[in-house]
């Protein structure tokens, strides 16, 4: 006789791993259902017991909507109100019936959702950045940087690297062929371009739901690729780009005031905010490493 948990019902021999999982899941579901049935029977027995009945009656008496006290109070208010305006006296019977009935519940507003804990996101971002830093230190292959920017990148990633400018329409196809080591998102400085209304805050469907940014950052996170928001908008740009920046693993700015504003974002999911207050020099990778080191000490 074979073990039921490792054999598909009706199968003659051991199953593959996938079917074993299915069989185990079915058994678990059946066990849960049996336990629920026992619990239901026990609850029904308690409900019908003397103590259960007493408890229900007491609860009904005190119910502010359906209880007799509440109904009498509503009817009393009707009598007082109609007593004050005797012209409404013919409406008294209907009013009393209305008051005696259980008023329908008005559709309540759902309770506000509690803020989502961001620490797991931040820890994951920290790990992605540290792994990238370790990879850069060991440097086992060419560095491929995926870049969101307006126009062509002005500088190479470094001597042994490559920058791939992403487009909204086909980034998935491009990245699947050759995944990058890191994604860098820059705030557009120019007026036009395809990314502008997708990563900045504008009164436009593309911007408000951030579908493109969520999809791209999610794709990268699934593959352990860190994402960096490279600020170029200064303090005035924080309001426009805060939503996108808050989703990236690291925010980098050369302006302390801008960095402080980004660091104060309550919904920031990244590991930190790095400030460059030194004159720019070296390759993009060298500067990124400096930023990572700064970020590791940032809040």
């Amino acid at each position: 006789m074979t073990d039921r948990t490792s054999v598909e019902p009706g199968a003659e021999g051991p199953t593959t791993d996938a079917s074993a999982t299915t069989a185990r899941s079915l058994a678990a579901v059946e066990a849960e259902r049996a336990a629920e049935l026992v619990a239901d029977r026990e609850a029904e027995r308690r409900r019908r017991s003397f103590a259960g009945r007493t408890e229900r009656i007491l609860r009904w008496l005190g119910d502010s909507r359906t209880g007799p006290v509440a109904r009498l109070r509503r009817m009393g208010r009707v009598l007082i109100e109609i007593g004050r305006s005797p012209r409404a006296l013919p409406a008294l019977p209907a009013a009393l019936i209305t008051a005696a009935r259980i008023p329908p519940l008005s559709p309540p507003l759902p309770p506000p959702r509690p803020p989502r804990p961001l620490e797991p996101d931040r820890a994951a971002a920290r790990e992605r950045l540290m792994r990238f830093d370790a990879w850069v230190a060991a440097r086992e292959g060419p560095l491929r940087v995926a870049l969101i920017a307006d126009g062509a990148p002005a500088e190479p990633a470094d001597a042994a690297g490559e920058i791939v400018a992403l487009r909204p329409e086909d980034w998935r196809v491009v990245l699947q062929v050759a995944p990058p080591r890191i994604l860098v998102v820059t705030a557009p400085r120019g007026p036009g371009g395809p990314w502008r209304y997708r990563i900045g805050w504008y009164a436009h469907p593309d911007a408000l739901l951030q579908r493109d940014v969520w999809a791209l950052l999610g794709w990268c996170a699934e593959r352990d690729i860190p994402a960096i928001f490279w600020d170029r908008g200064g303090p005035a740009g924080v309001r426009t780009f805060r939503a996108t920046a808050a989703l990236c693993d690291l925010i980098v700015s050369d302006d302390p005031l801008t960095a402080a504003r980004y660091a104060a974002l309550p919904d920031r999911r990244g590991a930190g905010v790095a400030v460059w207050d030194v004159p720019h020099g070296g390759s993009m990778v060298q500067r990124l490493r400096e930023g990572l080191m700064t970020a590791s000490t940032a809040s």
Partner: protein
Amino acid sequence: MSGDQLEVCLYSPADLNLMSGSSIWVQSVAEMLHAGPRVRVTVPLRCPERRRLVTGPLRQLERVDVVEPTRLRRYVPRSGLYVSTALDLIEALHRERHFDAIILRSFPTCRAAIERASLRGHIWSCYILEPERDIEDPVHLADLTVIAEASERVLVQSEEMRALFEAVVPAGRGKTIILPPAIPPADGGAPEVPFRRRLLYAGKFHPFYPVERMLALLTELRPTWPDLEFHVIGDQFFRPPGDDYADRLEQALATTPGVVWHGALPRAAAAGLLAQGGLALSLWDYRHGSTMNDLVVSMKLLDYCSAGLPVALTRTAAQESILGADYPLFVDDLDEARAVVERGLGDEDLYRAAAASCCAGGRRFEYPAVYASIAPDLEGRPDAALRQYDRPKLEGAAWNLGVLLPAGATAIPPLALRVVRELRRRDPRFHLLVGRTSAPGAAPTVPGSDPAAALRAGLPPDLDDAVSVRTVDDAPNWWRTIGLTVEPDGLLVDGLRPAAVSGAVPLGLVGPTTPAWLGPFGSADETSLVAAAADLVAGGDWAAAAARAQAGALAGEG
């Protein structure tokens, strides 16, 4: 429609016996609709009338009929009609008056109303995207979709709110109309309020409007200006269970030196008080409210603007669009409020400049202007659908040349590529945005894998960064990103009308069959076409040309 008369029903679940933004909104919309000479407005009340602060002025209007809830039932509790009973009343009135439009405010009311077969086809759902509700909840989204599908029109408060609504409820696209809160027109010129050191607040008392912080501001500033007063209008308190917020605030309003608490005042009386001058406060505390409020046009702000007052207010997208990003009394963070108020009260020139900005910003919300914006839909004008394209351009859109191709297109028109190349030679800020219309019934595009990317095949390498393509399933919003459009076959067809109404300047070669309204935008050859386009944008004439194109397209010449 009875004869030439337009019958409109306006219902909100607000209790019009209380003074709040919601009840003043009803008065404001009824008065705005009354600005339409053919409109007759019926306002069914939810709660029996006990005070006439709001209903009194409405009853004085010739073509506004306020209907008591007791019309249907002889006894109605003080708390008013339940949703279903209110809809019974509206149905009864509809049988009698044959409404052309039934404007219903609030999500629960609209959700219940679409179940009534007799009301369908007439419902104008209003403000159903409520900041308190979770737009990521699939059940709520499904409800919003059902409402949008069953409604004749969906009314939203602002362009920002329309963008969000259309993003989360695609079924609402093509049905949304902006109905902002409205204010009475100013008599004569701009009201000039006197410079006066006092603070003002009019509205409800809810932690989202940090009146306690405003009272603290008064106390902090009184040593500098001992005669500083804080005039407060309103009597509606939010009473959270298990919190003495309302009692605490009521106590503070009654005892803080310098506070003058007027309680509830009719709108006209409140306006009179505001007109005596001072600095109005409209501060928000996001710890107690959704950031979706950023997209809302505040009735409070417009009432301040109507009185010509300067306002110290929280910076939001919608309020920036009214007053301009450079308005001097925006508060970015509540902690900055004191410094902003000190500036407003301490510098008379700044006070007057801010007051002038508020006054100018409020103008487009005056009754005649707001009525004119909804009149095409309300009056069923033939160009109402075309006017859906008339939406403000996004910042920087002027530099985007757009081409909208049909669903089956397989290549980008060479003329568009040649034009953008020449434009970029003159100024690299130009881009070409190519849209390919979504095929009917096509699945939504997956981000990063747009089928329209196939149009890039054969694109010259020098234009790789200059061209972007996408599938377009929402043309009115796509056109908001476009400043210029080029017609590959010449300016021959009226198909350019939506683009022109959107404010995209049509460019193309002129021919013998070019319609008259397109003639001024035509060019004899490509060289002059490129020169005209570059000059329009770089020379600063683009906005004027866009306005001419829009006017021509709507006038329907040619």
